[in-house]
């Protein structure tokens, strides 16, 4: 009797588990499959087609789009973009981590307010904010004029239309995307764990390094991806703050789709970028597993 009952129980539990699994996974996955994978399918098919004489798609099969993507010209753009995006991401981390940490130290009711303050500037239009930087930094702009009036400068310095301006613009654009995930990871680290480490004889900096930092790493890695990826794909900042003198992957893809109206080639570039980033993501997942140890929820 008892065995039968425990069998029935086990079945019930398994059915509930399956139901739970479905409830949690199905909505999100279906949504993404329909709205993401089908468009992806279109883009994938486009990569094998040819550009029509006046643009768009011609259903003529070709592999030339792929071979063209290997041209050193595009590899150079990719490498330059990766360099700029990496610098931006590192800076975002250098600034974002202390800021996120600082927020966790605030009294609880102030934390949400501070998060909103960080995010609020981003509720104004990105284009407008970028133009504001031009107002600030151009040779006749506020910063130069101000410094010249103060006697610090005799000649205006050129701050815009160079790679450093692009890094500044991208950093400004994506900093909150670094701060929010790190905050989310840090905020729940049980302070008792840190105190325990200190009680056991660790110095504050050791406690930070051994306890706080490792637990923050998932948030840091996510923040890193959130900053790196859009930095690669942004085409406004290189155009406005870089003066159009350098292009990044985002400009490249945009140019192919919009200017050359070469959708097949643009699709190849877009797909390559996605694959590269997915690779990055898998590496990030690996690092996550290794640093955080085996036993993981």
């Amino acid at each position, binding site marked *: 009797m008892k065995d039968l009952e425990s069998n029935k129980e086990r079945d019930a539990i398994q059915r509930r588990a399956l139901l739970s699994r479905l409830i949690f996974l199905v909505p999100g996955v279906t949504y993404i499959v329909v709205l993401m*994978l*089908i468009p992806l*399918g*279109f883009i*994938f*098919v*486009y990569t094998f*087609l040819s*550009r*029509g*004489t*006046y*643009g*768009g*798609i011609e*259903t003529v099969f070709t592999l030339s789009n792929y071979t063209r993507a290997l041209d050193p*010209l*595009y590899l*150079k*753009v990719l490498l*330059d973009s990766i360099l700029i995006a990496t610098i931006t991401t590192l800076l975002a981390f250098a600034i974002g981590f202390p800021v996120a940490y600082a927020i966790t130290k605030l009294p609880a009711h102030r934390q949400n307010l501070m998060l909103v303050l960080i995010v609020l500037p981003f509720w104004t239009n990105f284009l407008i904010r970028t133009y504001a930087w031009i107002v600030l930094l*151009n*040779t*006749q702009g506020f910063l130069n004029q101000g410094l010249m009036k103060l006697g610090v400068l005799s000649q205006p310095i*050129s701050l*815009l*239309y160079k790679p450093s301006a692009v890094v500044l613009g991208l950093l400004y654009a994506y900093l909150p995307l670094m701060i929010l995930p790190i905050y989310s990871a840090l905020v729940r680290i049980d302070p008792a764990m840190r105190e325990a480490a200190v009680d056991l004889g660790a110095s504050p900096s050791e406690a930070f390094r051994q306890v706080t930092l490792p637990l923050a790493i998932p948030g840091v890695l996510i923040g890193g991806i959130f900053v790196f990826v859009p930095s690669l794909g942004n085409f406004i900042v290189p*155009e406005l703050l870089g*003066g*159009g*003198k*350098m*292009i990044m992957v985002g*400009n*490249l893809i945009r*140019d*192919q*789709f*919009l*200017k*050359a*109206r*070469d959708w097949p*080639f643009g699709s190849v570039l877009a797909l390559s970028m996605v694959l590269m980033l997915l690779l990055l993501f898998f590496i990030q997942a690996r690092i996550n597993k290794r640093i955080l140890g085996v036993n993981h929820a």
Partner: protein
Amino acid sequence: MKVSRAAIATAALAAAVLVLTSCSSSNSTSGKLDPKADLSKQVLTISNWAAYMPDDIPAKFKAKFGTKVTVTTHATNEEIMAKLTAGGDSGIDVAFVSGQFAQALAAQGLIETLDKSLIPNVANLYPEAANLAYDKGNVYSMPYSWGTTGICYRSDLMKGSEPTSWMDLLAPKPQFKGKVTMLATERWLMLPAQKALGYSINTQSATEMAKVKDLLIKAKSNLLAYDDTTFYDRLVSGEAVMVEAWDGWCNYGIAKNKNIKFVIPKEGSDLWADTMVVLKTSKNKEAAHAFINYILDKDVQSWVIDNILYKVPNKPAMEKSLPALVAQYPNMGITPAELLKGESIVDLGKASALYTQIATEVSTK
């Protein structure tokens, strides 16, 4: 298990997409247009650049014809082209696009041949306006505005060294280095170099374009920036002394600083035109024609001259508005005959990819 299912799904997807993309959308309502159609039953959606036509046009058009007009905006030709060519019905009846893009749309079978019997105001156009290379005879597009490209500069900051040649822009004197901008849009990016080297602005020759590329790369080191939108303001602020500019836009600078002047370099320049086209997917073609006719009205086109400071290919409108403006804005006085000396910009067909490639190469150096 998962992997092979994914593979099958992908293959099915690919097959489906292939079938769908090769089906042409034959959504067009074919057949002649009805001159007596009841326009109050039709609805128009127009896509145009912001502030490029009078704000009260929807209201006035509705009052006159009973048609509801919605205006949607696009910032660049490229954006609206992508929307119109992506397949399906964009919901747009009349689009304002530059001439060479109208040509591309026509080549892809996306726009209507215009029924001139419904556009009597076509008589307002200068005879030269029927001679534009991207659409000779204005078969599928009507020109809305036109002009040319040249060098816009601060005469007071360039005394004694006023530019006369495209090379003055591409290889400026040492005191002007770093104070020059060029247009970023591909066709106009290439223009100064093409003209300086004596080539056609519509050249499809790879050897010629390679030389153009070299010249542009050399010029890049002298540039402040590539700028399509704020170049005349840089002249006003003094950040730049010499910029590549469209004639109409130079007038915006002239309006703010009388020392700014416009010159067409001696090697010659282009002829650009913005046009109106009717989409084949439109279900309101009679209203669309009535709209185009309305726009070609002398007073509406006069508004463009007075407010946008562009030249229009509309004879009565130019005769009405020009006298008041030509003293302050000399380039408004360029006659149609003189404009036609410039090369009309046409679509490059397969060579478009070459131009984009070169633009990419120039920007990576």
